[in-house]
């Protein structure tokens, strides 16, 4: 499957008429598309996850990286231990109150654009420790979360489904930010 097939399928029908057809170009090896679609397509297939294992979910996360499950199939195998090189934070495990400011700081150190996946019951809602004296009930109280994965812990397949859902989120990312709507100038009041 070429790059064009996937991208063209994602173009809404109402937009297709606005672009010239490929046959309009005399030169070969030229495609035209929008920058958003190409960048989002590429970005969703080369995600760099941040190794943020906090508890037993981390075992499943590591297991998903090994040969039996192999997250490399989705272009995400390069787990990085530094936030500077990552654009996805997989929060795998219980977030406690002492860890929360650290997590926030590391999230802030990641460069834009960035996404967060909350893996497992603990990171999503506190899980079995929801009434603990030192547990943050959900990582979404600290950082914004894009995808929640249920399970205690989720199997690697569940993590993969979450990551595939995340790819859909990433593909909606606008490379060029939308301009704010400019209000139309008010018509001058008619003079009587």
């Amino acid at each position: 499957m070429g790059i064009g097939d996937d991208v063209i399928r994602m173009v809404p029908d109402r937009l297709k008429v606005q672009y010239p057809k490929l046959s309009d170009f005399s030169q070969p090896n030229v495609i035209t598309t929008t920058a958003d679609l190409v960048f989002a397509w590429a970005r969703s297939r080369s995600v760099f996850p941040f190794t943020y294992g906090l508890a037993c979910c981390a075992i499943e996360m590591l297991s998903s990286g090994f040969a039996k499950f192999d997250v490399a199939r989705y272009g995400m195998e390069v787990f990085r231990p530094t936030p500077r090189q990552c654009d996805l934070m997989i929060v795998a495990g219980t977030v406690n109150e002492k860890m929360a400011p650290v997590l926030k700081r590391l999230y802030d150190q990641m460069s834009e654009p960035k996404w967060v996946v909350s893996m497992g019951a603990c990171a999503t809602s506190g899980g079995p420790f929801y009434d603990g004296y030192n547990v943050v009930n959900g990582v979404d109280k600290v950082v914004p979360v894009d995808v929640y994965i249920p399970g205690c812990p989720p199997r690697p397949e569940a993590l993969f489904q979450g990551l595939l859902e995340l790819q859909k989120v990433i593909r909606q990312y606008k490379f060029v930010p939308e301009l704010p709507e400019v209000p139309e100038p008010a018509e001058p009041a008619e003079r009587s």
Partner: protein
Amino acid sequence: MAREVGRVEITMEALFARLAADFGDGLGELRVQEPDTLVAAVERRALHALAERLKAHELGYETLNFIAAVDHVRHLEAVYHLYSWHTNTWLELHVEVPRGTAELDTVTDVWPGADWHEREAWDMMGIRFKGHPDLRRILLKDDFIGHPLRKDYVDRAENHPHV
């Protein structure tokens, strides 16, 4: 001077008799709990002097392995797990601590490794160790209020205000 390790050949009965003879009432209710473990109740005011004597003793309880803190509701208890590399035996010191004024003398000057264990006992159970060089919380945040492993601890939102 470091002594040769594991050279004291002694049976548990002889060890029991030896400790009872040398320390007398200092190790109250001394008893054999496991094949290699002796348990003794210790008066809290005598703890520090006893610790120094035990470390300097010929049987060599030179290692403080762990300090545990227990909430017995009526009172608190600190348990010092000592290990002797010369006899390969354990000695547990059970120290009763009153709830109201939960204070103990530090043993960091005897066993420096007691530092973090005493900080944890302070953090979780609220036992204050007099003479500790740096008695801060070790696991919870510094602005946490209360000692959560006590049985009467009630978790309230104001105990952790920053969340």
